[in-house]
């Protein structure tokens, strides 16, 4: 059965700041949903609400119809949803393989067998293009490699819905091209669902079938990548009111 994540009318306030104001979206396993918007529009907060890092002030989040909002992060992972960090957070005292093994040992697909977890970790590192880096201390990895390690960790949890926070940011043009190709290939092979928060427009429009646009905590547009980039509200949000009104 395909897993379905549904966010309905979710709000989050931090004191007086209303970071997320009634956002709804749905994502089915096997699909990629892009989530874009200017800085501070609430994208990362929304991912944190889904991942259980923070609790919504109002609204519901369900997985296959079951409420998951307010569950602790490890329970969300157990349910089959895992999130990467915007700034990679490898366990610096561990090697690449050990980092991924933790996810294999504690994720939704958990094995209690150490050698098996190590094997899984090695295989997943190979998938994300980190073969040969298994036994390197993660503190010695480059930013690009750390991003891949972060991705390997969520894959190794066995999650079927991935929440990917700016996995394409901060890469050189060549690295970006490779990363997008790798992501598209793995998504096709493994068939996970992904909610991709991204600033790099070219990347997110390439990998997503559907895109949601947020501004100041609210959803302002939604549709296919082509529809979204032509939407006046979106152009206005990114480039200012003049750009939104004047047709090219």
């Amino acid at each position: 059965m395909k897993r379905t994540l549904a966010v309905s009318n979710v709000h989050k306030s931090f004191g007086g700041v209303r970071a997320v104001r009634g956002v709804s979206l749905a994502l089915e396993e096997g699909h990629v949903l892009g989530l874009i918007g200017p800085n501070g529009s609430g994208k990362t907060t929304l991912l944190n609400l889904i991942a259980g890092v923070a609790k919504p002030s109002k609204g519901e989040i369900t997985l296959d119809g079951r409420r998951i909002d307010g569950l602790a992060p490890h329970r969300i992972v157990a349910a089959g949803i895992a999130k990467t960090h915007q700034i990679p957070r490898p366990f610096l005292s561990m090697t690449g393989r050990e980092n991924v093994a933790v996810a294999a040992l504690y994720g939704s697909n958990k094995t209690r067998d150490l050698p098996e977890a190590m094997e899984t970790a090695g295989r997943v590192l190979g998938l994300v293009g980190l073969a040969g880096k298994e036994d390197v201390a993660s503190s010695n990895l480059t930013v690009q490699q750390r991003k891949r390690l972060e991705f390997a960790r969520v894959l190794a949890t066995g999650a079927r819905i991935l929440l990917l926070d700016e996995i394409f940011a901060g890469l050189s043009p060549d690295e970006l091209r490779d990363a997008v190709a790798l992501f598209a290939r793995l998504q096709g092979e493994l068939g996970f669902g992904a909610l991709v928060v991204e600033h790099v427009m070219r990347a997110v429009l390439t990998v997503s079938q559907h895109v949601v646009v947020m501004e100041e905590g609210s959803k302002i547009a939604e549709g296919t990548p082509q529809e979204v980039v032509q939407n006046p509200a979106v152009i206005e949000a990114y480039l200012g009111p003049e750009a939104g009104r004047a047709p090219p």
Partner: protein
Amino acid sequence: MRRLSLRTLGPTLLGILAFLGVLAAIAGRMPLVLLTLVINLLIFAALAYSINFITGLTGYVSFGHVLFMAVGGYGLAYGVGTLHWHPVAGVALGALVSLALALGIGAVTLRFRGVYFAIASQVTALAGFYIVLEVQELGGGQGIVLNVGFEPIAWFYTIWVILAIEVGITYWITHGRLGYGIRSIRADEDAAKTVGVHAAALKLVLFAISGLFAGAAGGVYYWQGSGIFPNEAFSLTFSLIMLAMIVIGGMGTLLGPLFGAVAVYLSSQYFLTVLIGFEFVIIGVLVVVIALFLPEGIVGTLRKYVPELRGLIE
């Protein structure tokens, strides 16, 4: 499942077990002076392994661990003095009360991180002191004097068993799935949660184990001392000695607490005879020097600079 054989246990565990085995074999023939020294060394080692479970493995610095040692001592004193139990049953009582207390305290204080946890843990020890002062059943400010026999062999084997179990549990935790979860918490607790590690539960289990064994070691310490007095029992010095032992030996390692106990206990006994009153000043200086220059302790430093030892000590 991997087959358990002597080879898979690793040289460190085998070495510690051999050391303990030799001590057990010759304890009965040791001169009393030496036996007393060994008993105290084992008590210190048991305390070091106990704080290693929480502070060594997770990085949560417990500044109030003396609380659990004292509760173990009071459990023993109440069991033996008031309930007229055998001292070993008294040790067990103290250990279990310590375990329960650690569960209760840990459920609250482990929510704090870094220096806040350290302060909270010290506050619990202070609170324990002031509570005991008011409880007449525990002797209030007068303490409890016990009328127990002089039984060095019984002390020895009791603390020996406690220490052996601690070493076994440390090995078991650090070599399995739990070890990976714990290391991930120590490295980055929030990131650990996002890959599915139930950090709160894991920390609480470790804190409870830590409390259990600090209590057990405390019970033997005050059994040997034939009584307990609140001013001594809740002294910050004990908390600091426990921390000093694992800092010196190597936090979170299997061998470190034993090395640390030997270093701290033997030097405190040595300096006690030459520089009366200054022994802890010297240990304090030693801790500062090690924390500054060898932050991974004896074991971590040996592993770092002597590659040949990497497969041997852990």
